[in-house]
């Protein structure tokens, strides 16, 4: 897993406390509105997202950039770059 100190995002999907598999459904919709090369930030407290999001990117040809480092918060920040 790649950890990012800082990553600028063009859009955010806030899925904190929203149940699985919302972490896959909402990003799939939001990424449609982004331009190629733009970054989507996914906020989630669901541990399974650490596996699911990179796997989804690999399957759908999007670039998984990594997980943001933020020890203050009790949720994850994952970043995807839209490739197509």
């Amino acid at each position, binding site marked *: 897993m790649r950890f990012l100190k800082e990553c600028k995002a063009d859009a955010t999907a806030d899925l*904190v*406390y*929203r*149940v699985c598999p*919302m972490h896959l459904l909402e990003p799939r919709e939001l990424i449609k509105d982004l331009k190629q090369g733009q970054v989507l930030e996914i906020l989630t407290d669901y541990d399974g997202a650490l596996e699911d999001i990179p796997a989804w990117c690999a399957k759908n040809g999007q670039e998984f950039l990594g997980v943001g480092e933020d020890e203050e918060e009790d949720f994850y920040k994952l970043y995807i770059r839209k490739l197509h």
Partner: protein
Amino acid sequence: MKRVYLDHAAATPVRREVLEAMLPYFSEFYGNPAAVYDLGAEIKEVLEEQRTQVARLIGARREEIVFTSSGAEANNLAIKGAALANQKKGRHLIVSAIEHHSVLNAARYLEKFHDFEVTFLPVDQYGLVDPQRLQKFLTPATVLVSIQHGSNEIGTIQNLAELAVVCRTQGVLFHTDAVATVGQVPVEVQTLPVDLLSLSGPALGAPKGVGALYFRDKLRLVPQIHGGIQENGRRGGTENVPAIVGLGQAAALVQGELDAKARHLSRLRDLLVAGLQERVPQVLYTGHPVQRLPGHASFCVEGIEGEALLFMLSRQGIYANTGSACASKALKTSPVLTALGIAPDVAQGSVVFTLSQDNQEDDVHYLLEQLPPAVERLRSFSPVWRKKMAAVAGA
């Protein structure tokens, strides 16, 4: 025998147009909105249309509405969901002393099981919360304040905007239980301005078993019913589609009727209040005399028990209540009336009449004919009343 129903805060009939709109969704359009085939997708679309109607009624956006099974569930999701989502910031809640049980007990749950501290905010003699007093109780650990918009027990409508502004200025979330007001008076979430607002179906002429929670923008909530991705992952359980269609239709209908409805209800209420005060001595009109729900008249009739009066009225075909629907069965002194500073012996005589558009002037006249002799009869064998009269005569 004539039947006059004056307990619309407890239950209402479903409006005919609403019922007709609901019926096809029990048997004809029964698909699960989460299903991927067209039978499900069609229902999902209908569900979203209803969400838009409910949002429009309170000036919200469609994405800001979660459907629930009741106003009580909406209150639970608001209080527990928002408090738990923000507990890292602090564990202090403020609720008014005259809230519905679903707010009070949700707060007590957090106190008992999640180490929250809860302040039960006092009210004045009319049931109003003072914004300056609220300000004084806020601490850096306060994460949520919940104050009812209108009281189904005493009719008082709070100065909600002033209270909400106090919280917004301090960065504290503000929830209001608007079950009694949405569908009775205009409610607009942006101008109030609240972060969370609960509403329920029956107050609008929709069926029981449906409600909704408004949550501002993308405010985080910890789900209280754990399940699937229904309601965008905020509330598990397949949506009650027929009831939600009822809520959406009722919301659309009531929006254009609010002014005429309020005029009709307040005219009947004023007739009832003036008539009752003229015909029955020693009656206390509870709640705020002016700033109140248009169809709400609540009293404490001295020297009698409210339950006995209800019984006598029901024998004449008149149906009313002594306070909240659940509290009246417990035969306990109402905590709401106690919070207003009303003495327990006076509070025992609580009686609440809640009107709807279906009521007409002759209903009020019938009540005003039947109520005074019923009170007189009950007082004639009331030792409390006799003692009081003897004291007056002695003085």
